[in-house]
C-alpha cells in the first residue's frame, strides 16, 4: 500500500468514474463529475480544518493504517434469504448487466466518498472496513436494512415500493447505520432509536446533496424519492423539510411523522416509533442547514458528524441530550456567532429544549 499517495489521491474519480454510473442519467453523470471537481478543490482546505478539530474525536482515523479507498463487495441473494449470497461484483470490477448491482456499487461509493472527503472518515469504522451489500434479497421484499455487518436491499413489493437501490439516500441511510454502530451506538428504541434513524436520514440526504452538488436551498430534503410505485400518492417516504407530508395514500395511509415535540408519537410499535419521531430531529437539521445556507454537509453536517462520533453521547440519549451536544459542539467549532444562534433556534422551532 502506497500510503503517501493514497492520502492525496482524487478518490472520488477513482471510485465513481463516469463509466461505472451506467444507470444514472447523463445529467446526473455531469453533476457527479462537477461534484468531483469541486471536492478536489475543497479537499486540502477540509484536510487542514480537520487537523484542528480532530482532538474532539474519540475514534479518529489513524492516518495510514488503512488505504483511503472503498472496498466494496456486492452479493446477490437471488431472491432467497441466505446472507450474504453469491458474490457478483468486487472492488474495481467493471459494471455488469444487473442495474441493481451497479447502483448498489455506485451508491456505496458515493457514501464512502462523502464520509472521507467531508469528514475524513475512512469507511464505516474509520479504518477502511469493507463495505458489503446484498441485493435481490427475498421475494417481493419491500425493504432494506443493516444487519450489523452488512447492507441488505430488497427488490420492492411490486405494489408500493420499487427497488431499494434506486434512491442513493436510501443506500447511504443503511451505510450510516453502520457508522452509528461503530460510534455513538445509539440504542435502537425510543428517542435514541429515533436519533439513530434521524442520523441515517441526515447523512443519507447529505450524500444525495453532495452527489448532485446541491446547496441546502436546492435540495429536496426527501428520503426515498423515486422509491414509491407510480400508483402511490406520494413523493417519498419521509420529508425532512416538512415531516408528515411525504405521502397520503389509500394503501399506505398518511405519512405519520411529526415535526415538533408537541406531536411526538408514543407507541410500542416500530421499536417505539423510531421511523416516526425521527421527523423531529430531521426537521431540526433541515432548519439549521437552510438557515446557515450553502452546502449542508459543511457546517451543519460537521456539527452532526462530530456529535455522532465524538464519544460524548450516551447510547440511550434523548432528543434533548443530543440537542445540547450539538449546541456545545457548535460553540466549540464556530464560537458563539451565527452558527450557535442557528442551532439554538432550530431546536427551539421543533420544541426540543437545549438547556
Amino acid at each position: 500500500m502506497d500510503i503517501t499517495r493514497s492520502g492525496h489521491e482524487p478518490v472520488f474519480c477513482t471510485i465513481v468514474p463516469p463509466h461505472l454510473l451506467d444507470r444514472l442519467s447523463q445529467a446526473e453523470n455531469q453533476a457527479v463529475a462537477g461534484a468531483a471537481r469541486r471536492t478536489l478543490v475543497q479537499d486540502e482546505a477540509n484536510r487542514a480544518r480537520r487537523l484542528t478539530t480532530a482532538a474532539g474525536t474519540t475514534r479518529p482515523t489513524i492516518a495510514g493504517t488503512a488505504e483511503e479507498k472503498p472496498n466494496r463487495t456486492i452479493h446477490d441473494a437471488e431472491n432467497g434469504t441466505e446472507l450474504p449470497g453469491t458474490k457478483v461484483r468486487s472492488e474495481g470490477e467493471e459494471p455488469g448487466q444487473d442495474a441493481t448491482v451497479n447502483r448498489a456499487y455506485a451508491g456505496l461509493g458515493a457514501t464512502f466518498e462523502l464520509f472521507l472527503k467531508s469528514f475524513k472518515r475512512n469507511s464505516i469504522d474509520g479504518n477502511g472496513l469493507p463495505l458489503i451489500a446484498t441485493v435481490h434479497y427475498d421475494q417481493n421484499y419491500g425493504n432494506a436494512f443493516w444487519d450489523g455487518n452488512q447492507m441488505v436491499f430488497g427488490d420492492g413489493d411490486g405494489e408500493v415500493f420499487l427497488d431499494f437501490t434506486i434512491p442513493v439516500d436510501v443506500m447511504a441511510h443503511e451505510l450510516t447505520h453502520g457508522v452509528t454502530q461503530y460510534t455513538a451506538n445509539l440504542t435502537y428504541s425510543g428517542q435514541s432509536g429515533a436519533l439513530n434513524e434521524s442520523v441515517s436520514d441526515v447523512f443519507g440526504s447529505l450524500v444525495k446533496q453532495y452527489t448532485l452538488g446541491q446547496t441546502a436551498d436546492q435540495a429536496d430534503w426527501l428520503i426515498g424519492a423515486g422509491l414509491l410505485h407510480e400508483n402511490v400518492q406520494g413523493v417519498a417516504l419521509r420529508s425532512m423539510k416538512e415531516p408528515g407530508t411525504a405521502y397520503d395514500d389509500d394503501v399506505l395511509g398518511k405519512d405519520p411523522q411529526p415535526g415538533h415535540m408537541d406531536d411526538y408519537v408514543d407507541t410500542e410499535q416500530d421499536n417505539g416509533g423510531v421511523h416516526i419521531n425521527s421527523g423531529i430531529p430531521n426537521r431540526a437539521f433541515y432548519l439549521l442547514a437552510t438557515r446557515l445556507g450553502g452546502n449542508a454537509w459543511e457546517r451543519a453536517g460537521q456539527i452532526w458528524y462530530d456529535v455522532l462520533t465524538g464519544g460524548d453521547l450516551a447510547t440511550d440519549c434523548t432528543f434533548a441530550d443530543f440537542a445540547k451536544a450539538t449546541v456545545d459542539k457548535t460553540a466549540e467549532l464556530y464560537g458563539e456567532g451565527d452558527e450557535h444562534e442557528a442551532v439554538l433556534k432550530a431546536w427551539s422551532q421543533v420544541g426540543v429544549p437545549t438547556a
Partner: protein
Amino acid sequence: MRIHVKRTGGFGGIERNATIDTSDLPDAEDWRALAEHAVAEGRDTPPVGVPDGFCYQITVDGHTVHCSDPRLTDDQRKLISRVLKEGS
C-alpha cells in the same frame, strides 16, 4: 384457526396487518401445521431487531408471539408471507 400477522418497522415504518381464517379452507391442515411451527419458534417478547428490519407479531387463536428480520425461521417466513398475501 384464525391467524393474524402484524408487521411493523422497516425502512418506511409502515404498519401492515392481515388476517386469515383457515377453518373453511381446503388446506386448513397445512395452515395449522405451519402456524404451530411458526408460533413454537417465536418469542413471547419482541426481540431486538436490526436497524430497519421488519418486526412481526403472529397471533394464532389469541396467542401472540414475536419475531424479526432477518432471523426468521423458514416456517415463520412462509407463514408471514402467505398471510400477508392471502389474508385480508
